[in-house]
């Protein structure tokens, strides 16, 4: 939809210096932006949640474009495996807080931008206080609980939420602005059950994908500030990088949405871990685990064990686990007859998370044998037992 109003009122526009006029000349030459639009960009305050794959292009392009204040939220530290896509960070930044690394890069690019760092996790306790001071929020998070948190906080505070998310080769982008259209909950009333959709750490992601989706988010942020442009409000953009296809879908406001509908039932932030099913149900027995060293000891002692690798073939090829049987996670429950309840079974994956779902799936299917989860997975084994294996 055309969203004619800028989210920045005219009286907040900040006049430009001659140096700024030179720097932003190519914007000023566009009649749709011009001096007025650039003055609003200077006055605008944008919060970027996450300085990873999506946050990197967001922060770089918004800084380059002259957005006056950028808030950046991230609790994480730069790792080597981030650098395949998180282009705001450099090799020399490994082990630094992401917000510090991002701040330095933004300042190098455009010293006129004020950077506010939040080296913390966004939570129900701090989200409203942090978001309140900003005009727009750009969501570049990597988990469902923070997505619902950002959505609800934006709805409660009346802020637009510029949304992007990615998985493997596929991205989604939209603008959720409850005053004008649907919110995230209108589209997705509830998250998937934990474990169904693996994280990028487990499922992988094509490095350029967040570059494309994050840049689309940046474009949406700039247009909300300048005003008068066709926004993604009420539209969901799907992008498939593997087949190079864009698709646009209409999304409607849900009358019964619990946070932005006609009769909302959510009036304050909730416990999003619980909402996303991440707290174990009361009375659930935790799965039994073996540390890599404990498993090594049992193998060395000649214990009768069956080791089941629940990773897919392409992933096993990265780091093979000797003497294991391969049964991909999606097939575990239906292949229950291949398990012998008299033999202890050890399940493993990359980091020891998906293997828990394999154990739960067999429990649910009625399997009674003893099952163990290899703590920290193949990466843990490579770290503690077999240094010849790569960690990935």
């Amino acid at each position: 939809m055309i969203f004619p109003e800028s989210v920045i009122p005219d009286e907040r526009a900040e006049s430009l210096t001659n140096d700024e006029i030179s720097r932003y000349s190519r914007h000023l030459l566009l009649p749709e932006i011009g001096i007025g639009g650039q003055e609003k960009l200077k006055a605008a305050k944008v919060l970027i949640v996450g300085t990873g794959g999506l946050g990197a292009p967001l922060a770089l392009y918004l800084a380059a474009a002259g957005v006056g204040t950028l808030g950046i939220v991230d609790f994480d530290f730069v790792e080597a495996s981030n650098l395949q896509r998180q282009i705001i960070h450099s090799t020399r930044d490994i082990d630094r807080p992401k917000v510090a690394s991002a701040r330095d890069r933004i300042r190098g690019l455009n010293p006129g931008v004020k950077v506010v760092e939040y080296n913390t996790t966004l939570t129900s306790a701090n989200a409203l206080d942090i978001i309140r001071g900003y005009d727009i929020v750009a969501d570049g998070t990597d988990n469902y609980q923070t997505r619902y948190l950002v959505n609800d906080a934006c709805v409660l505070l009346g802020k637009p939420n510029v949304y992007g998310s990615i998985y493997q080769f596929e991205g989604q982008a939209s603008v959720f602005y409850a005053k004008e259209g649907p919110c995230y909950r209108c589209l997705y009333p509830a998250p998937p059950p934990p474990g169904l959709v693996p994280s990028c750490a487990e499922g992988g992601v094509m490095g350029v994908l967040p570059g494309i989706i994050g840049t689309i988010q940046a474009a949406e942020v700039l247009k909300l500030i300048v005003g008068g442009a066709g926004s993604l409000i009420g539209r969901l953009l799907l992008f498939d990088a593997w087949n190079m296809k864009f698709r646009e879908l209409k999304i409607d406001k849900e009358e019964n949405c619990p946070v932005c509908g006609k009769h909302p039932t959510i009036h304050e932030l909730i416990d999003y871990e619980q909402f996303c099913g991440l707290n174990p149900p009361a009375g659930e027995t935790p799965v039994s685990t073996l540390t890599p060293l404990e498993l090594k000891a049992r193998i060395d002692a000649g214990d009768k064990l069956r080791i089941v690798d629940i990773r897919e073939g392409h992933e096993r090829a990265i780091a093979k686990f000797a003497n294991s049987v391969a049964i991909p996670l999606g097939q575990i429950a239906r292949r229950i007859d291949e398990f012998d309840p008299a033999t202890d079974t050890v399940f493993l994956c990359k980091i020891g998370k998906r293997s828990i779902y394999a154990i739960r799936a067999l429990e649910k299917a009625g399997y009674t044998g003893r099952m163990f989860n290899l703590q920290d997975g193949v990466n843990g084994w490579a770290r503690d037992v077999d240094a010849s294996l790569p960690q990935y």
Partner: protein
Amino acid sequence: MASLLIPTALRAFTDRKSEIEVAARTAGEAVAALAEAYPDIKQHLYEDGGALRSFINVFVGETNIKSLNGLDTPIDADATVVLVPAIAGGVR
């Protein structure tokens, strides 16, 4: 035959296939045909009671079936049905 587009998040259950042809008169039949072709996907598409899971949207063309007739929404023989799940990646 209608086309059913399978999102990346569910391709682990479809031998990585991104699209299948289905003989279906409604959106619900199209989704059911996918579950029949790839039984491992079934528990991820449907709640235990048989309702479609709420993190998955079904679009016929550009329109969400929530705004039409739900799973009973009739589809043309050459329709494109798109499954759109919530995905969350972005940072790490």
